[in-house]
């Protein structure tokens, strides 16, 4: 599904990713851990197609060269990024936005656009699964949402768009224990043989609920260690110091 070879990325002349290799197959869930500032969000941004980065190396998604694909095309091909810091968009109604987003993805896939009724039904179902108060969906996108509400709203978007490759950038940070379980369940019910995930987190706790196939440690722009889910438990005890 995703093949990254010797990826280097810099922004404002600062080299952040320094030769990163990562291979994610269909159906796999990979976790990335690593110290603050090691480049985890940078990797997520680069995969989403954010402008401003100077990039070299190989980036392949489903056999296609990602570098040539625009941000919105990536979204339409099924790449989804749940942001570490979801943006507040004043004046834009959350429900309307979700509908516009879904229909532009559906249209690109050659599927029929959903009408207002079908869309509302879908939103109702998904938001109740995630324990989201529907009232917040009639408000401006993320404006005044609590930290947890913002994160839940990201997962709601993931559930609605139904992507085949999802990147979750610290979606668990700032969530209470119940919300964490709900979100983990949201991810688990989406998992299947075709869908892949890249989950960025600082906490082993999340990985108790979402079982990863692989755990990687990203440090100073490189993956310095890869293991199975036990690696996360080890890191929880020893920290990152020992790895260097």
């Amino acid at each position: 599904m995703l093949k990254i070879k010797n990826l280097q990325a810099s922004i404002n002349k600062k080299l952040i990713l320094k030769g990163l290799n990562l291979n994610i197959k269909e159906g796999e869930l990979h976790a990335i851990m690593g110290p603050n500032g090691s480049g985890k969000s940078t990797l997520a941004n680069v995969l989403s197609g954010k402008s401003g980065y100077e990039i070299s190396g190989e980036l392949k998604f489903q056999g296609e060269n990602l570098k040539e694909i625009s941000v919105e095309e990536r979204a339409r091909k099924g790449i989804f990024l749940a942001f570490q810091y979801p943006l507040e968009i004043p004046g834009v109604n959350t429900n309307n936005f979700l509908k516009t987003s879904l229909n532009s993805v559906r249209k690109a896939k050659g599927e029929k656009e959903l009408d207002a009724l079908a869309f509302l039904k879908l939103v109702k179902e998904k938001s109740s699964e995630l324990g989201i108060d529907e009232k917040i969906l009639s408000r401006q996108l993320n404006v005044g949402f609590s930290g947890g509400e913002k994160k839940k709203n990201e997962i709601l978007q993931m559930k609605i768009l139904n992507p085949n490759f999802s990147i979750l950038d610290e979606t668990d940070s700032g969530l209470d224990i119940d919300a964490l379980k709900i979100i983990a369940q949201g991810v688990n019910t989406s998992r299947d043989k075709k869908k892949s995930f890249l989950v960025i987190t600082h906490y082993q706790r999340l990985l108790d609920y979402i079982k990863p196939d692989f755990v990687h440690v990203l440090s100073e722009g490189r993956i310095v260690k890869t293991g199975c889910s036990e690696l996360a438990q080890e890191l929880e005890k020893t920290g990152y110091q020992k790895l260097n």
Partner: protein
Amino acid sequence: MQNLDINSKQIDNIKKITSEEKNFRIKNLELFKTAGFPNKRLEDWKFSDFSNIISNNFNKLDAKSVSSNVNKINFLKDFEHNYIILVNGNLHSSNFDYEKINKIKILPYDKNTNYRISKNPMICLNHALAENGYSLEIDENYKFKKVLVIYNFFTPDVNNKILNNKNKIKIGKNSELHVIEYTENQSKFKFINNSYEDIILEKNSKLRNLYIQGRKSNGFFHKYIKSKLFYNSNYLNFIFSSGLKFNKLDIDCDLEEEKCTCNILSALFLNKNEHQEIKTSVNHLAPNCKSYQKIKNVLSSDSKGIFQGKVYVKANAQKTDAYQLSKAILLNDNAEFNSKPELEIYADDVKCTHGSASGSLDENSLHYLMTRGLNREDSTKLLTKGFLNDIVEFIKSPSIKEFVKNKLEDQLNGH
């Protein structure tokens, strides 16, 4: 301009005027002739060189009025309303079927004396030549049931003209009126409309005024509004007039007595070749008054937007609460926005806030929307709309809010 046909013969032709009025007109004509069309050397016109704009757009101009009739009027169907129809500035007809007619006095405007001499050459020109317009007076203790739409029509034959008109709105004690001034220009030609408006709000009265256009237009508009607010009156202006080649709205508001409120709210989307200036002067002349100004511009292509906002607080106007904010988004490197906030405060116990910011759309916000499958153009539109909606949300009536939203949508789509 060689072919500028503006002279005193036109004043001679005005019927039934007193010698006092005639002298007033001639004096103003002289003032205009000496000054010419205002250029950027005048502080109030430094961002809008009207003289230059006129010579770039007109080969000839005359100020004779056009008395064409209008054959078909497309009434707004979005909400029930009373109406006044102006054709090329002339009062054509009116309808107040929803109201108590004896509370309303509507007449062609005719009195044209006793104005202070102005430093603005466009006002001098208006004082010299204005023959058309309307005067609307609302009696005491009357609250309008429906909104009043003032249809400001320009007929297809208006060409190379400068039309001067004068209007007056007076709201009696405890009365309330909501107005939508709706400009619909059917002329494909270039012309100038230069109007002067007096607004008087008596004790405890309320006036809401909303400016909007039917569609894009080749008209060049200048309008000066002098409003006087008396005890506890409430004056609210919404400005949504986009799509004009040139538009300068100059609002000069005197808060004469205590507890008055003046609000000026604007959301503008400017596109190719459009030039729009909002100039305000909010004068706190009495204690305990409030003013609130929020001006939002989105500028695309090579458009130009200007906000010159002045807040004046007289020494005795203690407890003044004045707020002024201008925000602009430039979608294009060729677009230009100028803002000149000005505070002149002589009282010590006041709360005055002002700010101004302009810049391009936030790239991070654009990226966020694009990661959800929206292309750059649609994301830009959504953010732009969101930015301007903030002002539209101040409109209380749901049907009028919807109407304005649709108009804004049309403007964003280039209509």
